């Protein structure tokens, strides 16, 4: 991540020097920082709501119930999560919310799942294999119907906006399956997490 972040900024400044848009880039910094706060604030409300609902689901044993139901599948994808752990229930709810395009609900549920996985994680600063798998599921984001895209098409006067539903479903499925396969392959190659070894190099593998 260190290199990617550095390169995005480096390329921006070099490109801006070439196109003569240094001023725009400087403005973009202010605007971007402001947008980040807006996004975080916007998330705060909806996040609080879903975290509240999820807490009830957890206390009442609903999440554990879903976890138990999905244990056979979950064992394969998340081998380090113990049986009946609430993380699996959270992951299942996160996946379903994503599938139906409810990203407002999916994010808090995913974060809840992340927190459960962090409890099981041995090195709190570095992502566990299961965390990477959860991330791959979310960065690929399998979705049944791209509602927003259809809305934009309709708003622009499309006669047959639903035409894109099927092709999009094919592509999102290909992406999702590849993401899982890739993350599982990388898991084997990727250096293991360091446990209790400090002072080593910072840039292991990102």
């Amino acid at each position, binding site marked *: 991540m260190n290199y990617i972040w550095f390169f995005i900024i480096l390329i921006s400044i070099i490109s*801006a020097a070439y196109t003569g848009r240094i001023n725009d880039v400087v403005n973009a910094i202010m605007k971007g920082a402001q947008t980040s706060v807006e996004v975080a604030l916007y998330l705060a409300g909806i996040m609080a709501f879903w975290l509240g609902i999820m807490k*009830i689901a957890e206390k009442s044993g609903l999440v554990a119930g879903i976890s138990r139901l999905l244990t056979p599948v979950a064992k394969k994808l998340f081998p380090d999560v113990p049986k009946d752990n609430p993380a699996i229930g959270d992951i299942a*709810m996160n996946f379903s919310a994503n599938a139906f395009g409810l990203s407002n609900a999916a994010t808090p549920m*995913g974060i809840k799942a992340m927190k459960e996985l962090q409890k099981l994680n041995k090195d709190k600063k570095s992502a566990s294999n299961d965390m990477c798998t959860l991330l791959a599921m979310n960065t690929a984001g399998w979705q049944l*119907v*791209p509602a927003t895209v259809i809305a934009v098409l309709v708003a622009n006067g*499309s006669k047959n906006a639903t035409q894109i539903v099927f092709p999009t479903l094919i592509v999102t499925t290909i992406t999702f399956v590849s993401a899982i396969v*890739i993350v599982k392959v*990388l898991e084997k190659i990727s250096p293991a997490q360091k446990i209790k070894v400090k002072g080593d190099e910072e840039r292991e593998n*990102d």
Partner: protein
Amino acid sequence: MIKTAIDLISLWLIPAIILVVLLWGVIKKIPVYETFIDGAKDGLKVSVDILPYLIAIIVAVSMLRASGFFEIAQQLLAGILDWLKIPVDVLPVMFVRSLSGSAVLGLFSEIASNFGPDSYTTKLAAIMVGSSETTFYVLAVYFGSVGIKKFRHALLAGILADIIGIIAAVGVARWLFL
């Protein structure tokens, strides 16, 4: 038929989840109101935790968009894109879709209004936008919420899956719409 069913599910899913969770809580004699408050307390804390991660990625992406990099890339890659039958105007969508959700939606709206909603360019862009998640945003938010700084193989997996997604989108669009 399938579409109306999916629409109906999308519409009812949130109220249904809330209802089931609350009902189950009441049946199990959980103090639902207090429990809700207890859980909701974390909302603001999570937002504060992810803010630095968000600023890092959103500022960098804003800089990249403002810098004119995409125009330069369009000029440089015009030949290859033409050969692959990818309209040049879709190029920014390919990059931005992994970086920022609101930005990619803006780009997509522009394409839809410039090229018409039923053009090949718009359809290809639609598939690309509809089949993707903003990888870098998801990484920032999810890892940010628990303070993970080393993303390990999650980053590479996300990027590789994005690339496969772009290839698949071009393949499917060419197959169905060209």
